[in-house]
């Protein structure tokens, strides 16, 4: 039996090897009716289309196999449909706000030459990644596993830019705006804020490069925020304005969206935005993804199976990945790959023999350096965030 994954892998080979063959077309044609549609938005290879406008495109599983997710396979997520192409020569980043002592505007040239350049590897994961796998299902973009990717980000420390503007005593939050706009004036513009201490963290960057190349348009050119360990909602794209403020920001995308019930999930607290009932989503929870096999994949009896994938968390790093092939009774450590830094994902590999014919289920769970482990059971929340439950694939041995 030829699985959909095998067909896609055959097509993906074209992308990964840099072939110019129209691989996506082949994959599209080979798909059974009702499968996720593959389509290439501007500047990208074929991705899983979740919505045309605003554009929301997911990285297919094959795109999550390389250690660094290629720029043209990296997922795309927008709330607002007006996404202007920006002229880098006239682009300015305004830095100001009520708690800025010396408001300023910087050009891309200034950013690249007047500040220390920093490069780090970090997973960018959408808050709603895996929402489409939620039970019971919830409204929103029905993401599978691919609203995420791992990249090397190059830019400057937000802290260095804020220091140049002068952070006044009493600063509470830093607010970020990007060039993307709503169609209607009545729709709230997409602005986000960070607690001052996270904004001043040495790992929070204004990035202009991704995997050594200029940011793709649909990933935030010419410069975007990179907030390693925190979910993608804070990684504001097409950055145009940074405001240092002495009061909590009260925009829609902070006060009413991207929120969780207070006190239910682990992770950093965003105290200036927290209420008794709800609190902003912040850090990525420990998680893993099997990239080598999908459900129903055929494995020859007696063959060695090499299960592989990625594990990541919100910045403590991965301590261990374990695999169970006996219904989660016993767990054995997988081999971890190269450490890309505590914000990057970690590859894992686990080799075993498929001795018995029939269905063989392999479950994978990751543990982070701060002691957190993936749970078996989903903690339901209405927005469909934080699905980090243990995943398994059932192989067809015969």
């Amino acid at each position, binding site marked *: 039996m030829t699985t959909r994954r095998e067909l896609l892998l055959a097509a993906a080979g074209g992308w990964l090897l840099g072939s110019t063959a129209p691989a996506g077309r082949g994959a599209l044609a080979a798909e059974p009716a009702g499968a996720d549609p593959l389509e290439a938005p501007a500047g990208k290879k074929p991705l899983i289309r979740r919505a045309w406008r605003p554009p929301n495109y997911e990285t297919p599983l094959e795109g999550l196999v390389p250690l660094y997710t290629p720029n043209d396979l990296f997922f795309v997520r927008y709330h607002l449909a007006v996404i202007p192409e920006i002229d880098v020569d006239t682009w300015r980043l305004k830095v100001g706000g009520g708690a800025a002592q010396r408001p300023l505007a910087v050009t891309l040239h200034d950013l690249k030459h007047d500040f220390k350049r920093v490069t780090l590897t970090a997973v960018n994961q959408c808050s709603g990644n895996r929402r489409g796998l939620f039970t019971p299902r919830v*409204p929103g973009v029905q993401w599978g596993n691919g609203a995420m990717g791992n990249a090397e980000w190059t830019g400057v420390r937000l802290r260095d830019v804020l220091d140049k503007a002068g952070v006044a005593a009493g600063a509470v939050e830093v607010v970020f705006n990007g060039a993307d706009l709503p169609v209607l004036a009545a729709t709230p513009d997409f602005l986000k804020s960070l607690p001052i201490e996270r904004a001043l963290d040495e790992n929070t960057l204004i990035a202009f490069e991704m995997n050594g190349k200029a940011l793709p348009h649909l990933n935030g050119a010419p410069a975007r925020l990179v907030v390693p360990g925190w979910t993608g909602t804070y990684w504001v794209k097409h950055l145009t304005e940074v405001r240092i403020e002495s009061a909590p920001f009260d925009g829609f995308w902070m006060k009413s969206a991207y929120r969780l019930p207070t006190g239910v999930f682990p992770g950093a607290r965003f105290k200036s935005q927290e209420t008794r009932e709800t609190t902003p989503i912040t850090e990525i929870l420990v998680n893993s993804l099997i990239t080598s096999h999908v459900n129903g994949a055929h494995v020859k009896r007696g063959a060695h199976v090499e299960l592989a994938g990625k594990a990541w968390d919100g910045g403590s790093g991965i301590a261990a990945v374990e695999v169970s092939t006996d219904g989660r009774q016993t767990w054995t450590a997988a081999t971890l790959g190269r450490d890309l830094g505590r914000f990057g994902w970690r590859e894992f590999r686990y080799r075993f023999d498929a001795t018995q014919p029939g269905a063989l289920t392999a479950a994978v769970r990751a543990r982070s350096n701060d002691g957190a482990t993936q749970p078996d059971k989903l903690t339901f929340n209405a927005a469909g965030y934080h699905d980090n439950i243990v995943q398994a694939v059932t192989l067809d041995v015969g």
Partner: protein
Amino acid sequence: MRRPLVLVAVSAALAVAAVAAAAAGEESLTLHEGSARELTAGRCAICHSLDYIPNNAPVMDRSGWQKTIQKMRERFGAPISDPEAQQILDYLAGNYAGKSQ
């Protein structure tokens, strides 16, 4: 970023046209036949492509669509009157409520 005046001043249709060019393919989707199909398509497509409707259908029932329409009007400023909201709700609940099927 300060909103370019042109986007506010001209009709929403022009802004949509500008964006739709980047979203090649969205015109290929036609909503199911129904009494308020044109109204629904017209209002919803001001801000987003219509695939958001079938893509969310499996998750939706009448109450889900009611909440969504309310959110679009109150939070996002969708220009939909009370009688129109009722017609759109009847249409979506009748054609795109996969949860109750």
